[in-house]
């Protein structure tokens, strides 16, 4: 579904990503883990078109999208839930969701906004309760749910999420991840970027490890969870002290 070959990207003269190659197949949850500043967000911005300064090949559904602006890429079925839940704060929850549905309304005659809204309300009952409230007044977790729902309103083939757990309480993080799991059951394809490596690898099929702009490891998620380097660097396990005991 998504295939990237030798992607370089950066800001101005600063190169952040070097020769990234990766892919996401239909129906998969793929996660990219890495520390702060490894280039995770830059990678998603390059795919979604927000970052223009990129070279290499980005194929979505076998179509080169490396030169398209973000508003065109969304129309192809590739949606990004941006980092930090960028909801439209001064608009109501319902208006946020309706804006998300624009892509479908414009190109799909059979699309029923109400049906898709009901689906979202089923997935996120809190949003239904608060549909007339301004998005800026929601809690952090609710805003994250709204950001995900807004992207889902466009019925994307691939949904990319940038750190959905950032700044949220552990219980809410659990909620969010269980929803991501449910998305897969419904046949969605997810590319998930996370600092919370344990939770991300827990639900993902495959994972990539990104370090200072390079992919240093690609493995099935369960194998990555067992990988000693990954455990030491990203899962916060002190292996040396464990072996001594």
């Amino acid at each position, binding site marked *: 579904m998504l295939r990237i070959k030798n992607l370089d990207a950066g800001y101005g003269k600063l190169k952040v990503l070097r020769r990234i190659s990766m892919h996401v197949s239909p129906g998969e949850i793929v996660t990219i883990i890495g520390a702060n500043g490894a280039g995770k967000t830059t990678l998603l911005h390059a795919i*979604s078109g*927000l970052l223009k300064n990129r070279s290499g090949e980005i194929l979505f559904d076998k179509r080169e999208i490396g030169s398209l*602006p*973000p*508003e065109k890429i*969304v*129309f192809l079925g590739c*949606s*990004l839930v*941006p980092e930090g839940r*960028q*909801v*439209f*704060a*001064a*608009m109501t929850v319902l*208006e946020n969701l*309706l*804006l*998300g549905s*624009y*892509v479908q309304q*414009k190109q799909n005659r059979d699309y029923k906004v109400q049906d898709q809204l009901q689906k979202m309300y089923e997935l996120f009952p809190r949003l239904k309760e608060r549909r007339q409230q301004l998005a800026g007044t929601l809690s952090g977790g609710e805003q994250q749910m709204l950001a995900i729902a*807004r*992207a889902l309103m*466009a019925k994307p083939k691939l949904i990319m999420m940038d750190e959905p757990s950032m700044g949220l309480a552990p219980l809410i993080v659990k909620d969010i991840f269980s929803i991501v799991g449910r998305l897969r059951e419904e046949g969605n394809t997810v590319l998930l970027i996370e600092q919370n490596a344990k939770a991300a690898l827990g639900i993902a099929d495959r994972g990539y490890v990104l370090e200072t702009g390079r992919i240093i490891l690609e493995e099935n998620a369960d194998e990555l969870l067992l990988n000693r380097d990954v455990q030491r660097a990203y899962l916060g396990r002190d292996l040396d002290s464990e072996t001594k005991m």
Partner: protein
Amino acid sequence: MNIDFFFQYLVAGITYGTIYAIVAIGFNIIYNTTGIINFAQGEFVMLGGMISVALHAFVPLPAAILAAVILTMMIGAIIEILFIRWLANPSVLRMIIITIGISILVRETALHIWGAGVRALPYFTGSEVSAISVGDVHVSPQVLWVIGISAVTVTGLNLFFGRTLPGRQMRACASNRNAARLCGINAKNMVTLSFVLSAGIGALAGCVVSPITYIQYDSGTPLAIKGFTVAILGGLGNSMAAVAAGLILGVLESFSIWIMPTAYKDVISISILLLILFVRPSGLFGNKEAAGLKEF
């Protein structure tokens, strides 16, 4: 102090106030989608007035006004496409210089086309001397036209931004440009649309006010200064606050004639502008935190 005079001044103040408010809303629409102040906003008002007067020689009044508004909208679109659209992340200073340049360009073009003469549309109904009297207060019918059309415009804009898809998309762009683009919204087209809209309502204001104030090639600048004052007074970007602030400024100006010579009328608005910039830059109804984030 005579109570009839009081009402007479009040009505005059409200009339000018609504016009200031409409010009200020024009500023706000563009400010909200782009973060820039369009210093050519007053020129849209002048163009609306001048074009409608020119067309009225050939077609009936409503057609002349409609055509003037549509033509000015097209000019707004052309200006945006020629001078603004292709700029990538221009600085605020650069945008100020560009829009001031546009305003000079439009003004000089108008001078070449129409000369320096003063023009006006006829009164929409009645004439200069006709008046609707309530007790001893006499109101020109044109005043009612100004207030009525302004009220319809503000209501229409509110419906547009609150209920329609393009209106919501413009608000989304104003709120978070990148997130809007990720919803498939073409942000550049929204900027063009904002120029078209504010050119249109500016032109409409120019048409309705011209029978009272008359209009000439350089009428735009003083109106723009008043409109800008009102936009700042209400809080940049807040259109409903602009209506309130417009009425406040209009009425203040009108009553200032009691205590000062008419020639000093403009001093009021400039003093208010400076005062508000010094004391409360976020405006009367503005949010201090939001103002802190603004580049202006």
